[in-house]
C-alpha cells in the first residue's frame, strides 16, 4: 500500500444541518430536510416539496463573513461554507510548502442568479443586471472558494450531472496517488434553482409526497441543495503532520451506462461496472462492505436499475443499504460529496442511517433498504454510489483507518 489517500477533514451544509454535527443529529433522530417550500421563490410552492437549506442568501453571506457583498451566488456561498469547515477541521492554512488543489463540482453553477437575469433580458436585451449573469458559468463558484481558502496550485470544476462531486473526489484521489499534489480539497455544491426544479418537473420525476427511495410506490425524486467537501491528503503527508484521519478513500471507479441520456439501463450496466470496479481497486470482497449508501433517487427507473445492479454485484452478500436522499433530497452536483460525508459519519459513529419513508419492497427486487437506524455496529467499509443523467456512474469506497 503506502500511497493511501487519507481524509483529514470534511464539511457539509444541507437541509438537515449547517455542519457535520447537526447533520449527524438529524440522521440519528430521523429528521428529514424535505418539506414544504419556505424560502425559495417559485410557482410550485405548496405543490412540490423541496429540501432547502434553511438560511437566506443574506444569512449565508454573514456565515461566510461576507456581509453586504452582492457578487456571490448561492451555489458559491454554500460551497464556501462547506469547504471552510473541511479546511478548518483538517487544520489547513494557506501554505506554499504543500501544493494544494481544489476540485469542485456543480451542475447549475450560478444559475440561481442568471435565471433572474434572463427574465428581464428576454423582455428587453438591454435589461437585466449584469452582476446576475457574470457568475453564470460553473467555474465561478470554484474560484470563489479557492480565493477564500487561498488555493492557487490547481483549481478545476467537474460537471457530470448527479455524479459530479463523486468524480471530484475521484480526481482528487488520483492527483494524490500520482504524486501531482499532496493535498486536495474535493467536493461539490449546488443551490436550488427554478431551472432545475422545472427541468425535472418536465420529465415528470418529482414526487409530490417527498421522495421514497426503493419503495414499491415511489414516484420520483425531491430536489435538495447543499454542499460538502473532503480534505484528501497523501498518507505520507497526513502521517508526517500527525493529522487525525477520519477515513481512507480505498477504491473508486467511473463507468458509463451508454444506454440513454436520461434513463438507466434495465440491467444496471453502468452501476454494476462502477461498483465492481471500485471493489476491484480496493481489493475488498463484496462481503467486506458493511454498508451501501445508495444513489437511490426515488425515481422508478434509477432505483430499479440500481437495485438490480446491487443484487448482481453482491449476490448473496448484499450488505445493509439505504438512500439518505430521503433526508437531504437530491442535491445533484453536491450529492456525491454529501453522501461521502454521511458515509464517513457512519464509519466514525458506528451506525447505519435509515432510508426514510420506506414501507413496501419493490416487487422486482429480493432486497430491501434499512428503514430503522442501526446503532453500535462496526462499519469498516462503505460503498457510496452516484449515478447521473448521461449514464455517468461512479462508486467510491471509504474505509475506516483501523482496518
Amino acid at each position, binding site marked *: 500500500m503506502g500511497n493511501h489517500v487519507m481524509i483529514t477533514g470534511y464539511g457539509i451544509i444541507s437541509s438537515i444541518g449547517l455542519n457535520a454535527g447537526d447533520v449527524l443529529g438529524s440522521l440519528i433522530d430521523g429528521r428529514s430536510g424535505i418539506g414544504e417550500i419556505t424560502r425559495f421563490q417559485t410557482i410550485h410552492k405548496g405543490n412540490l416539496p423541496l429540501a432547502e437549506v434553511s438560511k437566506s442568501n443574506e444569512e449565508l453571506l454573514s456565515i461566510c463573513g461576507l456581509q453586504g457583498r452582492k457578487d456571490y451566488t448561492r451555489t458559491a456561498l454554500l460551497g464556501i461554507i462547506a469547504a471552510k469547515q473541511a479546511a478548518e477541521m483538517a487544520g489547513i492554512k494557506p501554505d506554499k510548502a504543500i501544493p494544494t488543489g481544489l476540485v469542485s463540482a456543480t451542475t447549475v453553477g450560478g444559475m440561481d442568479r442568471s435565471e433572474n437575469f434572463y*427574465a428581464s433580458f428576454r423582455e428587453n436585451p438591454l435589461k437585466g443586471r449584469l452582476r446576475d449573469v457574470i457568475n453564470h458559468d460553473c*467555474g465561478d463558484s470554484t*474560484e470563489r472558494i479557492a480565493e477564500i481558502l487561498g488555493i492557487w496550485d490547481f*483549481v*478545476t470544476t467537474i460537471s457530470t450531472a448527479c455524479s459530479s462531486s463523486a468524480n471530484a473526489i475521484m480526481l482528487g484521489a*488520483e492527483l494524490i496517488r500520482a504524486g501531482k499534489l499532496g493535498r486536495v480539497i474535493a467536493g461539490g455544491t449546488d443551490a436550488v434553482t427554478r*431551472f432545475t426544479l*422545472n427541468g425535472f418537473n418536465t420529465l415528470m420525476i418529482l414526487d409530490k409526497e417527498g421522495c421514497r427511495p426503493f419503495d414499491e410506490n415511489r414516484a420520483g425524486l425531491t430536489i435538495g441543495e447543499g454542499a460538502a467537501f473532503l480534505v484528501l491528503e497523501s498518507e505520507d503527508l497526513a502521517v508526517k503532520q500527525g493529522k487525525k484521519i477520519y477515513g481512507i478513500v480505498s477504491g473508486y471507479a467511473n463507468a458509463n451506462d*451508454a444506454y440513454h441520456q436520461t434513463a438507466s439501463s434495465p440491467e444496471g450496466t453502468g452501476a454494476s461496472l462502477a461498483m465492481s470496479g471500485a471493489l476491484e481497486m480496493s481489493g475488498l470482497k463484496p462481503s467486506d462492505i458493511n454498508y451501501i449508501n445508495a444513489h437511490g433517487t426515488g425515481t422508478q427507473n434509477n432505483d430499479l436499475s440500481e437495485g438490480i445492479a446491487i443484487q448482481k454485484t453482491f449476490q448473496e452478500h448484499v450488505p445493509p443499504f439505504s438512500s439518505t436522499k430521503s433526508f437531504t433530497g437530491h442535491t445533484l452536483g453536491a450529492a456525491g460529496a454529501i453522501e461521502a460525508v454521511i458515509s464517513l459519519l457512519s464509519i466514525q459513529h458506528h451506525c447505519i442511517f435509515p432510508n426514510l419513508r420506506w414501507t413496501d419492497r419493490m416487487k422486482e427486487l429480493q432486497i430491501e433498504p434499512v428503514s430503522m437506524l442501526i446503532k453500535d455496529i462496526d462499519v469498516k467499509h462503505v460503498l457510496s454510489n452516484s449515478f447521473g*443523467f448521461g449514464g455517468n456512474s461512479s462508486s467510491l469506497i471509504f474505509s475506516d483507518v483501523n482496518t
Partner: protein
Amino acid sequence: MAYINGIGIISPQNTLPGSGFLEPVVEQTADFLKCIEPVYKTYIDPLAARRLSRLIKMGISSARICIRDAGIEMPDAIITGTGLGSIEDTEKILGEMRQEERFLNPTPFIQSTYNTISSQIAINLKCHHYNSTYVHRAFSFESCLVDAMLQLEEGSSENVLAGGIDEMTINHLSIIRRLGDWKRGPMSNLDLWRSDTPGALAGEGAAYFILSLKKTGSTYATVETAETLYKPASSEQTAGFIKEFLYQHGLSPEDIDLVMMGNNGNMEHDQVCEDIISLALPRASKVLYKHLCGEYHTVSGFALYTASNILRGQSIPGALQLESPAPDRINNILIHNHFRNVDHAFILVRR
C-alpha cells in the same frame, strides 16, 4: 506525457477531413466566428440527429472523425472540456421559463446538462468506460488533458478520447458584449490585429484528440504537460511558473521554438500576454491563432490541433502570421490561453 494519435476538429477554418492545413485561410466578417460544420448524417444516424442540438452534433462528429483518424474502434475513456456546454439549450429553457415558470419540452433541459456531450459520444460509440466533463473557464480543456494523462499513467486506459468544445450564439454574445470585453459589432477576423477597437472577437469550436502512451504510424506529436495557474499576482509570477514547469520537464526557455500566443484582440489583456512571454521566453518565435477561431473557453483545442500539425509537418502556415523568421527546426511549442487574465493555461507540445 502522451502521444496524440488522432485528431477530429470542427472550427471556423477549413479543418474537416480532407482539408489542407489552415490553407486557404477562411475570412469571416461577422459578429463571431462560426464553425464550418460537416454533413452530420455522415457521423450520426439522421433520426437521432434530429433531436440533438448543434453543439452535441459537433461533439459527436468531431469525436467520430478523431477516432477514425487514429484508426481505433473504441476509446478507453471519454473526457470533455466545455466552458458553457449547450448555450442554445440553456437559453431555450430560460426563454420559455421566464416569469410563468412553465416549459413543456424536456429535451433542452436534458441537453443543457454539461455532461451531455461526453454522454452522447458514449451512447453513440456504446462506450462503457471512464467518462467525465470539465467545466472550468479557460482550464476546461487543460483539466481534461490532465485527467487524460492520469488515466493513461494509471494504466487503465490505452486510448483516451479528450476534447474541448464550446459554441457561441448571438443571444449570448449580446449579453457578454455588455460586459465590455468583446468587439461590439461585426468585423473581419483577418483585420483583428489591425483593429483599434477594444475587446475580443468571439468564436467557437470542437476539437477531440486520441491520446495514448503508444506511438503509432498516425502519431502527430506529444503532449508533454498541461498546466494551469489561477489568479497570478503579476506577469513575473506567471513567467516564473512557465520556467518552473519547463524545468520540471527537462527544458529551458531556449528550448521553446514557438509560442502560440493567448492574444484575443482585447488590447489590455493582449499586453499582459506579451509581457508574460517576453519575460519567460524572450527568444521564442511567436504566432497568433485566435483570429482564426475566435475566443472561447476551450480555444486551446484549436491551438493543440495547430501545434500538432506544425510539429508533424515542420512548417508554419501563413495564416498564423509568424512575426519573426521561421525557426529551422520546430521541436517544442508552448500554447497559451487565458480567461480575463485570471486563469492562465499552458500546453507544452513536443515533436
